[in-house]
């Protein structure tokens, strides 16, 4: 029964998870290490409120399935992002609403924002042209793109998170780039060109 505060920082995630089999409360140290990062990813995808629920749930799911963690992976982040991605998928509808809303911002209110709110919109929300591009991707493509772009996972890490071979990640990303180039190419961020999709 080691207190969470006794866990040395040098202990990698894998060893920490192993230790949590004997001493479940240690698992809180994994939360301390990664909760902010997982929350940021969930919040980017779903917005703040659902992100709080998702983040809490990610660590509960992780805790309950810790016995099956592959201990050859010292860094638990890909595993946690994989769980987070699956949980985000349960909010697919909320995510679609959010993306659609962001895609429409400039269309609905062209030129009505003053400087400050326009800044806020571009900082806190996704640029409309990116949001529109996202609406053209399948759910699986979006998961992969955002794990790489927003969670900053390597291809190998993304493969772990999604439970597919790294070769699959490479070929999917190749197709994804082609699709994105077409979706983004030549579109002015604030153009009012109607988008279907």
């Amino acid at each position, binding site marked *: 029964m080691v207190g969470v505060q006794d866990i040395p920082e040098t202990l990698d995630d894998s060893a920490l998870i*192993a230790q949590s089999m004997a001493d479940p409360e240690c698992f809180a140290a994994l939360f301390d290490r990664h909760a902010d990062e997982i929350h940021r990813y969930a919040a980017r995808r779903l917005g703040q409120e659902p992100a709080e629920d998702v983040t809490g749930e990610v660590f509960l799911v992780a805790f309950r399935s810790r016995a099956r*963690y592959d201990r050859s992976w010292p860094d638990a982040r890909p595993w946690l992002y994989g769980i987070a991605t699956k949980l985000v998928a349960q909010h697919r509808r909320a995510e679609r609403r959010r993306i659609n809303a962001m895609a429409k911002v400039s269309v609905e209110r062209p030129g009505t924002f003053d400087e400050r709110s326009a800044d806020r919109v571009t900082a806190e929300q996704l640029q409309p042209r990116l949001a529109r591009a996202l609406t053209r991707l399948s759910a699986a493509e979006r998961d992969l793109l955002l794990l790489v772009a927003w969670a900053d996972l390597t291809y190998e890490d993304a493969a772990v998170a999604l439970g597919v071979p790294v070769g699959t990640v490479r070929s999917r990303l190749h197709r994804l780039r082609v699709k994105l180039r077409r979706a983004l190419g030549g579109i002015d961020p604030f153009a009012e060109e109607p988008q279907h999709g």
Partner: protein
Amino acid sequence: MDDEIRTFADGAPDVPPYWPEARAKARERLLREAREGRGFRFPRLGWQAVAAFGVTVALVGGVAVVLSGQPGGPGPGVGTSVALTTGELDPRPGQFIVVESDTMYTSESVDGSGHSRWLYRTHRKIWRSADASANGLLLIEGREPKPYPGEALPEQARDWRGSDWMQLASCPGRLAAWRTDYAYLSVLPTDPVILRKRLYERASGGKPGADADKQAFVAAGDLLRETYMPKEQRDALFMAIGGIPGVKAAQNVEDSAGRKGVALGRDSDNGTLEQLIFDPESHLLLGERVTVIAQKDGRPPVGSVLALTAQLNVSVVDKLPDAPNVAADGSCSVEQASASPQPTTVPTPGPTDPQPAPTEAVLTEEPATDEPAAEPAPTEPNITEAPAPVDDAPEPAPMEDSPAGS
């Protein structure tokens, strides 16, 4: 990162930081789960409502009572005490095993106001499907806490009253070698040496090392805590634990109900002795005990007891009780999410090989005593030379169809 993907990375929406209150709440929720779920818990899923329960047979760790007869069961009359050696439970597929216990464990928490700890106590009653075919149920009732040795009882420990019903979802396919249902336990190897290897495999993928010994001991505790297995497996497990390096036996160790048994214990890394206390004859688990054995900074004096439990009785019932306000258990529904990472394409032979269904093979009236055929155990070769990755752990009884559970 390529251009298009870079564009998305640069354009990622700025989001506000994790709201501290929400963060603290999520962390506390996790810690609560960690405290309640000592030992491995079933992941969770939707709950099947059922009618009032019918008790059939109760077996007691020295205190057992048979409440009513069961066809083919050892049927003394209602309210009769059963000696440990005479009564063995005979759970059938579809029935539930009920274990009642008193527990006391250390609770430690760190929050904004600092570090606090105390010994929290509960009474637990757990129902689990004998063949993992249905969800289970857990009732936790608070009991008056005790202060951590040498310290005052912190304010937050005073809020202990009340009880909680929790659903325990059953996903045997996902748990694989970490199952603890009767159907799984009743086909464990009855050879202590083979069973000991199984403990190492379960704990650490079969990799050797000092940590592996510790983990194997923990794995043994997980198999015993709030479970029931046939006498043959209990005997083998008792011997297997005794064979783990660092394990020492002690006589006349008391559980929290005051029953004395033989304890198998191991020193932990942090100056405590962790003991599993057994009935000397039936080898049923009586309880657990954690005692301070080495003085350390910030630790209580040698001899202080930091955890003490008692498994009071084990019984079999046909149905789950009607329970109010059951906390749903949704973890089986994210089955995919919680699978562990598969970094590379590990070619697994696949658990599809035909294996005997344990529920039919074992849950018979008279378990065949000398027949190794009762063990599917095609798995032993895995564990000796090449440590198998965790996910390759053997799956003696893939019980894919869980009619009531999904």
